């Protein structure tokens, strides 16, 4: 393990809990505490907490923040009509290559918080600043002329912010017990300021597990106290990155670096729904429009395997011809089968399509399905 790897404010908590630590995106993170399967099922049936302090947090502030972010990101930011709303969105390059998928929270009248993937912290920060320079001389009609009166700050808040996810069917009833009596709990994709126990936090009704729950933003120095307070509830289990991955794949949620990267566009990644066709003039919009009109391209499919566990990189074929590779693949603790994603030509992407998966020395048949793999969660 790299001695230079960063530690989150919860590092000592993980070690004290006996976590198996792993390096992820330059951070030492818990892979598991007692076991991936048990932690997975704890979230599906009860409540689990995850250390997300490694995730990148950018604050974008100023009277120009809305116009700039509307140009930087694919989804329509005007849907966040009042502070306290959030949306899933993408940052693309001019060729529609996905730079990152992020959640953007409108945290004030003229303030937004972007939560990006840990591995992309630097990339997103640098890209946002580069696009800011371009945008500052870019006019909607395509002419190049300096904008007047730009008021915009982009600040990397990752190191001073703590983030813990609380997820599972018991998460909301438990949070209610932790908040002041009568305090509002945010509805789905909303964020509000409140207190958890004695600690001031931003509470967001978002997650990456397919279960209902919240993500708790707080000052880095308060994070360990909140973590311990949460674990004082016997219903709550600490969960590592291992179960975070199996939980998200059961829902068909994308993982940056596995299911998408700079070489993939939103249409192929099936994320066209966060790139509204009627939104004009944002970075990548022309390329996305062109790709939308194409009939044939590669597309992300999800599939189940009864007799094997698909692993990233394994070959997919049809009629003896290789047509793609596994992007994400794992064992589903909820379904007790192998589940996976991969890019294949659109002609092979319909649910029910049978494909052949090469699992080391043997070939097994797999079936394309519509995500999510797991139905009837608390979400």
């Amino acid at each position, binding site marked *: 393990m790299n001695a230079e790897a960063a530690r989150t404010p919860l590092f000592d908590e993980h070690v004290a809990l006996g976590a198996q630590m792993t390096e992820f995106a330059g951070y030492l993170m818990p892979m598991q505490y007692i076991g991936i*399967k048990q932690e997975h099922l704890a979230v599906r049936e009860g409540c689990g907490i995850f250390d997300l302090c490694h995730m990148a947090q950018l604050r974008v502030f100023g009277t120009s923040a809305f116009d700039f972010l509307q140009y930087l990101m694919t989804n329509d930011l005007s849907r966040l009509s009042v502070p306290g709303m959030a949306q899933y969105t993408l940052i693309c390059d001019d060729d529609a290559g996905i730079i990152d998928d992020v959640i953007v929270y409108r945290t004030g009248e003229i303030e937004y918080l972007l939560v990006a993937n840990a591995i992309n912290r630097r990339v997103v920060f640098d890209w946002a600043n580069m696009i800011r320079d371009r945008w500052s001389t870019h006019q909607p009609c395509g002419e190049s002329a300096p904008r007047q009166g730009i008021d915009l700050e982009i600040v990397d808040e990752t190191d001073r912010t703590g983030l813990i996810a609380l997820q599972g069917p018991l998460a909301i009833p438990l949070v209610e017990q932790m908040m002041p009596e009568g305090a509002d709990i945010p509805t789905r994709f909303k964020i509000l300021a409140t207190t958890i126990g004695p600690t001031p936090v931003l509470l967001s009704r978002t997650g990456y597990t397919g279960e209902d729950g919240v993500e708790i933003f707080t000052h880095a120095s308060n994070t360990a106290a909140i973590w311990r307070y949460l674990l004082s509830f016997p219903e709550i289990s600490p969960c590592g990155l291992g179960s975070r991955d199996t939980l998200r794949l059961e829902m068909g949620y994308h993982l940056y670096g596995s299911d998408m990267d700079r070489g993939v566009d939103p249409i192929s990644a099936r994320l066209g729904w966060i790139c509204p066709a009627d939104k004009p003039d944002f970075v990548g919009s022309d390329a996305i429009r062109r790709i939308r009109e194409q009939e044939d391209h590669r597309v992300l499919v999800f599939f189940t395997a009864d007799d094997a566990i698909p*692993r990233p990189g394994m070959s997919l074929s049809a009629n003896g011809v290789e047509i793609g590779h596994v992007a994400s693949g794992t064992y589903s*603790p909820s379904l007790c089968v192998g589940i996976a994603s991969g890019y294949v030509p659109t002609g092979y992407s319909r649910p029910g399509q049978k494909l052949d998966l090469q699992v080391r020395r043997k070939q097994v048949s797999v079936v394309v399905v519509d995500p999510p793999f797991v139905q009837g969660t608390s979400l």
Partner: protein
Amino acid sequence: MNPDDRYYHSEHEWVKIDDDGLAVIGITDFAQQQLGEIVFVELPEVGSTLTAGQVYGEVESVKSVSELYAPVTGQVTQVNSILSDFPETVNAEPYGEGWIVKVRMSDTRVLDSLMTSAQYSTHIGEE
């Protein structure tokens, strides 16, 4: 911890000779601990041949795949089909219900090259 009534292979397999003279093969407690929760076991076919030192199957946890190495040579007479539905049995009872295959050995002399439980304990202590 490792029972004395069987032989051990350096790749963390055990062999026990049952009342019918068959070699019952499984993985050690040390191995199952290292692997973590086993979620899939790839078993050989009954009738297939195992060759000492060669891969004959795989065990998978959520995150990883590990190969199974045959400690002896012979023909597979039975596989533990319980493991298809309950692979976690290997974790729970590595020396009992979590056995993997039974083999009719073609040459029992290979047993002489395997370790005793005391030798195996030293082996994993040194790793």
